């Protein structure tokens, strides 16, 4: 069976791409004939897998934002030609934009699958929901990140073909955090959508015992605003902006953390939540999506900063509670180990073949 993954840009540094290459390598390892197609070349290509067992194709060697209409038509022709050479199997289109662009060109012997990496709530608030409603119902399967998401799309986009397979964890750590460093961790781009302002406020209102710090990993346009906000909330000294940390060093960060906090406006299935759980770090998160719920953090109603602060306080106060929830988190994270997720994909393939 061949499995074709298609992204708008398959070699850009990003969440969708990370997941796609992990799955591609995993499925290839199980004997599938796997291809990863990128419609555009990234400005600075990133190499996800050192020795890929799958084939990679780039359709246009120009970056995404420099396209003219004739160039687009030519690219569409090249894409159709490439798809024509594939053996029977499945074509996974990884975003609504990709489905719009490609669904018409998928040959009959490739069963079309539309994937969506955002939450239902995110789709609802932008053009994605309309696009998914009209385009994904035509495909053989629409795949979402969690059961709740699939359910919501079935109800609100009237999809008869909604299914769910979670994102996989890249690696399974042997070591878990001792949960003794007095540190709350927040990870993500410093942009509005992540709402680190709320995390800072929650941290400030939690009455964190002396010694506890909030470490924010990531960079972005909001840095100055957030710094000012932290000062205003009276925790300027205790919020540490760590900047970007390479992926290879992230495990160290999890091991040095006692609590992970997710205060985003929107999240699909955040990889940080899975990775921290795998490292036995308990998490507190706003209940913003089925994906977040599936990872099993302590849930707080979206936007309820005071309640978030209280949950942080509870965990900061009790090492025992942290250890209890940390162990549960690691157990929950089991389900996201690559092997389980690959099983999920293979049973999806079997379902399509029924």
């Amino acid at each position, binding site marked *: 069976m061949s499995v074709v993954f298609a992204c708008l840009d398959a070699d850009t540094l990003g969440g969708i791409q990370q997941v796609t290459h992990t799955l591609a390598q995993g499925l290839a390892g199980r004997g599938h004939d796997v291809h990863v197609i990128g419609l555009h070349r990234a400005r600075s290509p990133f190499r996800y897998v050192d020795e890929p067992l799958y084939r990679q194709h780039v359709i246009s060697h120009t970056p995404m934002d420099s396209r003219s209409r004739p160039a687009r038509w030519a690219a569409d022709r090249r894409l159709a030609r490439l798809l024509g050479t594939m053996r029977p199997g499945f074509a996974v289109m990884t975003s609504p934009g990709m489905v719009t662009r490609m669904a018409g060109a998928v040959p009959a012997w490739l069963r079309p699958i539309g994937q969506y990496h*955002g939450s239902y709530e*995110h789709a*609802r*608030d*932008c053009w994605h929901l309309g696009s998914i409603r009209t385009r994904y*119902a*035509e495909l*053989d399967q629409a795949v979402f990140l969690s059961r709740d998401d699939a*359910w919501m799309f*079935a*109800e609100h986009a*009237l*999809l*008869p*073909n909604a299914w769910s397979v979670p994102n996989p964890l890249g690696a399974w750590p042997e070591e878990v955090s001792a949960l003794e460093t007095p540190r709350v961790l927040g990870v993500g781009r410093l*942009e*509005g*959508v992540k*709402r680190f302002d709320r995390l800072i406020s929650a941290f400030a209102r939690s009455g964190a015992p002396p010694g506890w710090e909030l470490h924010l990993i990531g960079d972005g*346009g909001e840095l100055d605003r957030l710094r000012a906000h932290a000062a205003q909330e009276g925790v300027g000294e205790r919020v540490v902006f760590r900047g970007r940390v390479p992926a290879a060093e992230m495990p160290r960060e999890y091991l040095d953390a006692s609590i992970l906090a997710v205060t985003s*406006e*929107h999240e699909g299935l955040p990889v940080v939540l899975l990775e921290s759980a795998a490292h036995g770090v308990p998490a507190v998160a706003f209940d913003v999506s089925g994906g977040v719920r599936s990872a099993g953090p302590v849930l707080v*109603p*979206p*936007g*309820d900063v005071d309640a978030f602060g209280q949950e942080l306080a509870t965990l900061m106060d009790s090492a025992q509670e942290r250890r209890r929830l940390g162990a549960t988190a690691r157990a929950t994270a089991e389900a996201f180990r690559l092997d389980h997720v690959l099983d999920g994909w293979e049973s999806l393939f079997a*379902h*399509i*073949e*029924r």
Partner: protein
Amino acid sequence: MPDCTVVVITYNDAARLPRAVRSVLRQSLHDLEVVIADDSSTDETPRVAEELMRADPRVRYLRRHANSGGCGAPRNDGLDAAAAPYIMFLDSDDELPRHACKSLLTEIERTGADFVSGQISRLYEWNGRMERYYPSLFARRRVVEGIRAEPELFLDSFTTNKLYSVRFLRDRMLRFPEDILYEDHVFSTELYASSHRFAIVPWVVYHWRRARDRSSISLSIKEMENVRHRVVAARRSDDVLRRYGAGDLLPARQERFLRQDLRVYLNPLPTRDRVWVKEFAAVVRPYLAEIPAEVLHRVDPMTRVCCHLILDDRIDDLRIAASSLAGSKAPPRAAVRSEGRTYWGTTVAAGMDITGLRLAELPFSASRLRHEVTEITADGDRVRMTVHTYDPFGALPAGWKAFLRAGRVKIPIEPRPAGEGGYVSEITFTPRASCEPRIGFTRLSDGHTTTDRLMVDPGLRPIELPGANVRTDGYAAYLRVRSRSHVRPLLGRIKRALLRRLSTPGNKLRCYKALIRLLPPRRNLALFESDVGKGCTGSPRAVYEEVRRRGLPIEVVWSVAGDRRAFPAAARLVRRSSWRYVWTMARAGIWVDSHGFPLDYPKPRRTRYLQTWHGQGIKTIGFDAPDLRADFDQPRARWRAAVARWDALVSPSEEFSRRFPASNGYTGPVYRYGTPRCDALVRGTSRYDVRERLEIPDGRKVLLYAPTYRDRAKGSGVSVRADLELMAEELAGEWVVVLRTHPVEKYEVPSHLRYFARPAGSYPEINDLMLASDALLTDYSSVMCDYALTGKPMLFYIDDWDDYRRSERGVYHDLPAIAPGPCVTTTRELIDRIRDLPAAHASCADRYAAFRELWCADERGDAAARIVDDFFEARFIKERFIKERRVS
């Protein structure tokens, strides 16, 4: 063993059978079988079925020896032959959407239900439109623990939109009756009665195809036999329920009969002749007579009236009443009022009570007249007709004049009192453009007009005229003119097509960018825009009037996006986003607006942009608002660039200056002179007489209800959260609600509430509404800050406060803590507060004062004058930098 059996029943439908069968063979579920159950067709069906079998081994063919005359017998044949554990039924003229089988199969396996029911959708073959059948029944994906949990599901009596466990059907010995047409009604009643667990899915699982000329059983409703069968099916269904000891469900089943089965015949009743109606009434009467009065009370007033007319054998009245069921629900010919209640017809009788429609209490311009065309003929290129006008609720005043409007043509007409009541008009007109002609009556005392369409005999044959025809369609049978489309000359068509091709947003922007590079802006040309072109109001208008009052040598052009009537007659207008608009943007040396000129358009280098902003309040804005907090960076970059165009910002208050510039990344000059928009509020000057324009009866107080929109549901109408129905019941004697919805919101006041609630979403000047009102009801709208200037009471209906502040939108202030009036979360509570308004208002006096101090301290009534001093006059002396200055 296949996963699913699909039984396709057919009778003499060889032409369409392959389409139905192929829709099954194309299913995303591959492992299935098709059983063609042929009710002994006499056409090509056996040969067609043979071919289908040859082409795909999954197809089987069963043929009855003699025709059964119904759908029950072939379905039973299919059921007996089914090899799979699950079964579906399909009619040979319909189709299954591609995922129907697999999605239902997955659901029944997941839930272990006895059967799964999905959305059925009508597909109109002549225009390809799809219409879902009672979508609210299927909206939630769920498992229902027996019909008793949701008796309204009796409305879904189809057998085709379901996948059944064959074992369940066989164990319970559920079979289709073979001796009646509506076997599915009886079958589904028994199905519901026997199942304790079934599932519902929201997606479409069945396409019920409807052709215009169809002779399928369910649509041959003209046949009296058909009516009889439907009544028999209803009786038998009731018997089934009794037999299963479910007599308590009878009312729900009977309600289905009234809401659905009966309406199938009542809606087209005006198209039937008297004999048919008489017989129809005789057929359904005995069954109707058995239905208890309280079940009749559950249906809408006009259906109830029809039921009583059937029971009383009032055939002529029944035909008139039925014409009010469809379309825009025409008023009756006559009505009587007694002790505050309204009755259909000329006598007071309990069954004729139509008070709930509230037709008798409407304001004049919304009142309903009934115009019946009694004669109509062609005369050359003209139409001559006689129209009988009925005024059942006595809406017409002493002095009026009348007209007929057909498209843009308006002809005066002279209705004369008719002998039997009402008026008769002889009308001659020449139909030109396609339209639905309306007759209007204008009240001479105040110029208000009411219009209604013209009803004709539904059997009217189209009247052909040169260039147009006059006809009717639908059961409501309104007179329509259809002009034949004339072919434009070729050159004209090419020109239009070319222009359309060129007039893309992208091309306009490119052109604009070239223009501003080449041409300098004119210093004395100003482009004004308010509410994104929706009106001529707010601060831009106040500034404009001040500029005009001073006679400054500035040429002003207003941007308009829709209704041009609200603009001053002297103003030059350009349509927003038109080529002329693009040209004006490029050439204007002054831009003034209240929201934002098209965001992607850079400002010409020497143009000066006055941003007056349209409101202040507790809601988060700019980069803190949800639309700029999303996961994409592009909107943020776009807004940043748009804000960078502003040269001066009008700030109404210190609080606004504290929040707004920071949250929008604006660092330029800020005017702190108050708000031009609010000058009129401070001075108390109105543009129009609201009470007169909105027809507020004397002695009624005005509650201005102005909710803001919800970010996740713009245009949905959900922002109107207070229960207007309950408010009408409780407050209509003393109050009128003026409903000012937000410009991005769409909400239509239901006709039965129009007597209490006046829609004012597009009323041209909100200041007037504030000045004319006695109190404000809002939720989180910025209108509360302006309203504080009036000193009048405010009420806050904030039932979704937690959701709104935390996730829907986000806020800067704790409204319940600072609100200058009572905050309530239920309509009951709201009504109590309104009844006790003076006391409620007085108890909030301190907070009111603090609120006013926070938002309105700068308002002196001279903001427009001071801003014009600075922005418009000063520049003619010299360009100078404007620093933020405080009011002395």
